């Protein structure tokens, strides 16, 4: 039985494509408001972890729970309602080329059945207002009428974040949000992710191969009063956002723990993801 408090729960999930094991007996749980940072080499199953979590890919065996409901054998049409509570930033953004930025960000608001029935998610604001607000949040309000091809890689990623969070989901999944970006843009993206997490206390799973991203997620937070990114309260403080790290290798979860535990890890593969954080 899944407890109601779990946002995501994997029980012994396996998935393979031919000979390749994408997920190998993966089990974990994520509670509301928590953050998970998933490290792993290319092809270690990180992206599949996210796709299985929202039912985009069905596992071969094991059970997956989303928002306390088992989704392992759920029909696609029933999944749509659950997915309305989840935002996803895909690798490279996956914005719709044929739609402009405004339409892209409005897409989940316009198309998600659950949101339509719920009367725009409890708030009386119009779709346009919410789209503008969200684009203002990622500081791209001026690009409303542009098309994705006209934006830079970093801007596309920011629009992707806007589209993922416009519905104010309880869980946001980030697939390599900083891949292929320069360090300055990458830090801007992480700052946005922190801001999103801390303003609404949303749960997050972030897949990345940059240690710096995880370090920032674990040790910094957005302060809505000052509007600045500041260090988190020390460990043990209830205000501190719980961030745990996963390391994946060939579909297996080979490490799970806090940042301190990660730094103390002896496994050679796990240690590969530890890089000097620059201060």
């Amino acid at each position, binding site marked *: 039985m899944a407890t109601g408090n779990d946002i995501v729960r994997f029980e012994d999930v396996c998935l393979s494509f031919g000979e390749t094991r994408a997920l190998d007996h993966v089990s974990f749980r994520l509670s509301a408001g928590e953050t998970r940072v998933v490290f792993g080499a290319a092809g270690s199953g990180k992206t599949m972890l996210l*796709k299985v979590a*929202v039912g*985009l890919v069905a596992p071969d065996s094991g059970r997956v729970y989303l928002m306390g409901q088992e989704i392992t054998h759920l029909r*696609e*049409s029933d999944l*749509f309602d659950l*997915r*309305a509570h*989840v935002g*996803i930033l*895909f*690798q*490279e953004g*996956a*914005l*719709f*080329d044929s739609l402009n930025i405004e339409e892209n960000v409005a*897409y*989940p608001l316009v*198309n*998600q*059945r*659950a*949101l339509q029935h719920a009367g725009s998610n409890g708030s009386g604001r119009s779709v346009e207002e919410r789209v503008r607000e969200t684009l203002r949040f990622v500081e791209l309000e001026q690009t409303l009428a542009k098309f994705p091809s006209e934006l830079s890689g970093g801007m596309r990623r920011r629009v992707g974040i806007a*589209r993922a969070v416009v519905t104010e989901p309880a869980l946001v999944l980030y697939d390599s949000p900083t891949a292929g970006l320069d360090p300055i843009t990458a830090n801007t993206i992480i700052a946005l992710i922190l801001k999103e997490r801390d303003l609404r206390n949303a749960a997050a799973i972030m897949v990345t191969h940059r240690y710096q991203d995880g370090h920032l997620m674990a040790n910094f937070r957005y302060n809505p009063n000052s509007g600045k990114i500041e260090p988190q309260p020390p460990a043990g403080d209830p205000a501190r956002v719980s961030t745990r790290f996963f390391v994946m290798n060939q579909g297996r979860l080979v490490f799970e723990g806090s940042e301190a535990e990660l730094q103390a890890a002896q496994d050679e593969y796990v240690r590969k993801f530890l890089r000097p954080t620059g201060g």
Partner: protein
Amino acid sequence: MLDFLKPPVETFQDFLVLAGRAVRNVFRSPHYSDDIFQQMDVIGVGSLFIVCLIGMFTGVIMSLQMAPMLNQYGAQGQVGVIVSVAIVREMGPVLTAILVAGRVASGIASELGSMKVTEQIDAMRALGTDPIQKLVTPRMIATAVVLPLLTIIADFIGLIGGFIMAKNLLGISASLYWTSAWQNLEPRDVVQGLLKPFVFAFVIALVGCFYGMRTSGGTQGVGRATTTAVVVSSIWIFVLTSAIGRLFVKI
């Protein structure tokens, strides 16, 4: 022993599943009528010029090649019959479909293929839309409406092309040509000539969508999907025109 048959049979089975869902979605909401009209414009209006051009040349060639033979038997007056029957039954539907397959199946496969490899299809599902409902069904409906219309236009232009040649080479009068062309067309020729493009439309749109949606392997995969879509839909057009033709031929 029959293991080599497994992949094609599985592929065909997957295709039937997609086709079934696409057709079922016609009767389910939500309906994306904007997408249907947009696709009609892209597929229909976009193909109109080239379809007219090919139709015209089909008629011209038929007339040109048949004229000497008919002249030999003193049957010049029959040119209208030959052109109209051949074009309405076979040449119009098949050539138009092959042309549209080259233009549209490839376009659909590459568009959907690019969407697949850039995760836009997954994004669509994640954001609460059924990609078959949103992408496949509108393309299928649009092609099924537009291809018979394009074929009618191609047939008509082909008959005009045939007339131009008949008049110039054989000196056939307009009234003789059009009367013989018209009177020898039976209702079942017309039914056959319209049933074919309707069936081909499903093949073209669904094959294009099918190979687009199962694209893998980056941009190279998109190229592969596009080529396969055109080849497979063209083959099916010839297979089906023979099969449908057989239903209508009585000896």
